[in-house]
């Protein structure tokens, strides 16, 4: 058992994180939301210079790990760029992959990419995805772009897997930032003459933040390793997505509780993280549908545990 990340991937993560920090971190995200054209003028050169376009998560362990940790570093500042969609694409295939459930009305950052496709998880089809206009800013969908699906096109078989796994790392990065902000605040903020971190009720929430983060971090790394060795099943992927959604719900809600009113202000980073993650958590579908998809795939494929569960048809036979 080797659970260590490749050194090159760790170096890439640090490079992405440092570059985004140098451009203002979440402040840049806030600025891009106010003026979406800054994604093109400020973020595109940065993304290009970091070499994301050269990373192919299908090209072996180091590149897959770099894609994952790069997505995580971007998630730490909820970087307003369709990184996961692009990373899930392929150099000789779609420029970006979106997961949808039926025909979508809007797709995030679709105005920034060419050759986008939409994989419909309902019928399994893959269709061209075309932007119909500029970003139409909404609080919970700050970079949604009106769109429509077109002709059926080819799509790499593992695009869905790549999208699900890399999304989990993007969300993990965002949650780590929220947890850092909440735990630091709990020490700085004094009420009744002492730091609020000394109150049991606050400690309870901090512990749950940590548990949610650890769960997502461990399962994301595990599922990535299965993606790399080709053994990831759809049940594995929906299990990761369900864990991602549950972790985000716990962390975002509890971080807000620890931060109190200040955390609700637009000038506070947790508010930006919370709003900007909602699209990732709801597209192609949310918690209940993900859990249902998981159960369906477990019945069809079984599930690998220390004592594996056989597919339902096989176990009934």
């Amino acid at each position, binding site marked *: 058992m*080797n659970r260590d*990340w490749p050194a*090159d991937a760790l170096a890439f993560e640090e490079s992405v994180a440092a570059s985004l920090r140098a451009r203002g971190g979440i402040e840049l995200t806030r600025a891009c939301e106010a003026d979406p054209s800054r994604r093109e003028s400020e973020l595109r050169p940065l993304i290009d210079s970091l070499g994301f376009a050269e990373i192919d998560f299908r090209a072996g362990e180091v590149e897959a790990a770099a894609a994952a940790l790069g997505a995580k570093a971007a998630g730490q500042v909820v970087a307003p760029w369709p990184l996961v969609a692009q990373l899930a694409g392929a150099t000789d295939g779609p420029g970006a992959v979106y997961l949808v459930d039926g025909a979508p009305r809007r797709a995030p950052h679709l105005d920034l990419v060419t050759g986008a496709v939409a994989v419909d998880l309902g019928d399994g089809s893959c269709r061209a995805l075309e932007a119909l206009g500029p970003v139409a800013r909404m609080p919970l969908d700050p970079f949604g772009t009106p769109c429509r699906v077109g002709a059926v096109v080819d799509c790499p078989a593992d695009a869905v897997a790549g999208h699900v796994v890399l999304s989990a790392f993007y969300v993990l990065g965002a949650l780590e930032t929220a947890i850092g902000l909440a735990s630091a605040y709990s020490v700085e903020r004094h009420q009744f003459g002492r730091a609020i971190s*000394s109150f*049991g009720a606050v400690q309870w929430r901090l512990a749950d933040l940590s548990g949610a983060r*650890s769960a997502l971090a461990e399962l994301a790394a*595990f599922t990535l390793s299965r993606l790399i*060795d080709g053994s990831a099943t759809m049940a594995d992927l929906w299990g990761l997505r369900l864990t991602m959604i549950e972790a985000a719900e716990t962390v975002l809600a509890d971080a807000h509780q620890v931060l109190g009113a200040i955390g609700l202000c637009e000038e506070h980073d947790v508010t930006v993280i919370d709003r900007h993650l909602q699209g990732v958590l709801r597209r192609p579908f949310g918690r209940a549908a993900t859990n249902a998809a998981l159960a369906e795939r477990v019945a069809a494929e079984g599930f690998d545990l220390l*004592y594996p569960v056989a597919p339902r048809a096989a176990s009934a036979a």
Partner: protein
Amino acid sequence: MTSQPMTFADDEAVRDLRLQLRRMIDEHLPAAFHGAFVNGRQGQDMADAFCRRLAEENLLTMSWPRAFGGADASVWEQTALREEMWAHHEPRGAQYMGLNWVGPAIMRFGTPAQREAHLAAIANGDSTWCQGFSEPEAGSDLASLRLRARPTGEGEWRLDGQKIWTSYASLAQWCFLTARTDNSGSKHHGITVFLVPMDRAGVTVREIDSMLGPHHLNEVFFDDVAVARAEILGELHRGWDVIRFVLAHERIGIARYARSERILSLLAEYLPGDDDPEADALRAVHARLMVKARTARLMNYRAIASTTTAEVPGGVSTARLTTTLLDQEVAALALEILGEEGLYDDDLAPLEAWAEEAWRYARSATIASGTSEVQRLLIARAMTGEGAR
């Protein structure tokens, strides 16, 4: 650059060990074996016999150093052993305590005479230990213990006081006892560990009936019990050093997640059919808990790996908290799926009447060996830099 590929799979030695253990369990334990203490003496006899089989295969003390008769097993082999044992109701019975931490503590702090007296007996499966830590006024706050050891001169002490919640005390031959020998300093100073035979004059055990089943909870009374200097483990007044070693050795705890995984696997056969109105809901919960079980195992692996790599702040407590909560969720789901039949412990009950026992025992998961509240406290302290894990 080059690097070893990331892998979460067992290596060949661990895979082989799992197969060997499952084969032995299959051959030597009946399907209805629910643990050493569920069926009184009969279960204990089965556990003792199984321990002897493990000893014959050099598996009983595989985690011990070779210098003390062990096999220097890798941390992942030790993990697999813990998982397979717990998933099958810990067929080593109470002896797991002697193997897991009493033996190692005696190796670390014991005199040559103590090592001579105890290690071989533990390794052969011939002695059972109980842990004399908790007291009526010292539960999570262990260092507040009051059981007093009074020096009488002549290199002897007299023990007076009470321990409580002492598992297996009525079965054990020895007690790993903490006592207060000095009140002059901080509460962590002045504690001493004694290795006390349970048949010594003045030791009285009273079983406490509980929903967990027999032998799980006991009171132990010490009434003017004589102990000698030779029975002190480690240094006088420095018992907290020993306790910290023991707690660190027990840091990962029992592999509850392994039993959760096995129950979930078995429960798959009992999920309702398509035409049952509850089918979708129960399948969804079952699938979700399988993911949580896998995740709990991975979190435990991270905590185990952190003994040799960079530590994760609060990682051990986070893994324990997740695992114990999972234990309760899985037990609740078992009763939910099995319905009324899940309540029964007779021969006709499904899963060899395992579900109701698992449910009762799961009630203690978030209480025993550090409550979930204490685990959360430790996690929060680690996050805010206010203390050790």
